[in-house]
């Protein structure tokens, strides 16, 4: 039995999507960001930090989305979605997994400061400006790659792409994608994948964003 603890539109979507790509049956437990369900006693025994994702699989529980992706690829190699030790693409595969989290940390910081600190947010406009610029600078190398090929790795679709299943859908709330044409085409390619469509059907309603774009506020 595989059980994924999930918040719609969060990092755990990376895993939801990958499970669909692998055709693995999983029970999805949904949590809300503001209803206290992540802080409930029952969930604390699964994730002491009260965060998602958490994946119960093979008698163990894994919390970090990057670790879950690696674990699923290594224990289910028949799907060919990882690049395992010895593979010529091992280095770029690991690099993209790391990069996904580097980029996600900027998104998490923007989410927190724009969405979870009150309205109006007491966040510093200087920091928000810096973070948005930093996010845009991480999108540039991805844009360059997507001008050359359809997926992150030259050999084709991999779990490195599913790691971006959080990033590429959150980033447009903070950075204008008008200048990232290849990335927009890439997102359309993702949205055309049947496994992605199935994953979105199970994802639930996103509770993060109440408007389509969050500009940097005017400096005081």
């Amino acid at each position, binding site marked *: 039995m595989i059980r994924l603890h999930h918040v719609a539109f969060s990092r755990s979507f990376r895993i939801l999507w990958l499970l669909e790509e692998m055709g693995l049956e999983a029970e999805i437990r949904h949590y809300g960001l503001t209803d206290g369900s992540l802080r409930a006693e029952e969930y604390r025994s699964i994730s*002491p*930090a009260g965060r998602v994702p958490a994946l119960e699989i093979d008698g*163990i529980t*894994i*919390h*970090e*989305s*990057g*670790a879950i992706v*690696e*674990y699923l690829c*290594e224990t289910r190699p028949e799907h060919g979605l990882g690049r*395992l*030790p010895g593979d010529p693409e*091992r*280095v770029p595969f*690991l*690099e993209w*997994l*790391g*990069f996904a*989290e*580097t980029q996600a*940390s900027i998104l*998490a*910081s923007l989410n*927190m*400061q724009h969405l979870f*600190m*009150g309205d109006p947010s*007491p*966040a*510093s406009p*200087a*920091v928000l400006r*810096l973070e948005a610029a930093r996010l845009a*600078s*991480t999108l*540039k*190398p991805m844009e360059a790659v997507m001008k050359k090929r359809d997926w992150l790795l030259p050999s084709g679709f991999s779990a490195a792409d599913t790691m971006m299943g959080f990033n590429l859908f959150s980033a447009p709330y903070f950075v204008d994608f008008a200048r990232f044409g290849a990335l927009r085409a890439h997102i359309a390619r993702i949205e055309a994948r049947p496994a992605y469509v199935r994953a979105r059907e199970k994802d639930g309603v996103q509770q993060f964003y109440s408007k389509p774009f969050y500009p940097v506020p005017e400096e*005081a």
Partner: protein
Amino acid sequence: MEIRLHHVDESRSVRVLWLLEELEVDFELVSYDFFDKSLRTAEYLMLNPAGRVPALEIDGAVMCESGAMIEYLCELFPEAGLGRPPGDPERMEWLDWLHYAETIGQHCANLTQAHVVLYEPWMRSSTQMSLEARRLSKVLERIELLLVDGREYLMETGFSGVDCAVGYGVDLARRFVRLDELPGVAEYLERLCARPAFQAAQPEADARRIYAQDFYEVPDA
């Protein structure tokens, strides 16, 4: 095998420098100053377009993510026993801690930005800083919970590459979070600091440091 690490004292590249010292392999170290423009030269930007450290040149490839470097270096030098390869009983835990290091690192980076990089008080938000410090403390609790069984390092079987990844974060976190209520974490950090390879990865006595203070209090709003 040619290995060249591009490094800034006290930055994430410490993880990799420390691991290379633990592995006892030959490598070349290229050091940069965090405060001058040396990471912005055209030559460096060719290596890492984001102008960040670490960058690791290894047999013609360039890597930029410290977690990926740790995993790859442990695979390249299996005889050192610092990785837990696929199939190892501790593999899953090892991967989880490797990635968790970045969860810790992100809060440290946000706090570093607010306390150290943004030198103008009006640029900061004390709400954000206290929130980040609380979240950092919360993520350290997971280490405290792990260590209650008496193990010395994150893996029950002993020191490994994930201690370099996580340990660097703990060493930074002590500047933003008091470890009094996390005695297991404090002892773990002492054990790490006693390792010769950790000490070899620290700045020279007269080096200019990113962290001038031992502890950074959240300023009043």
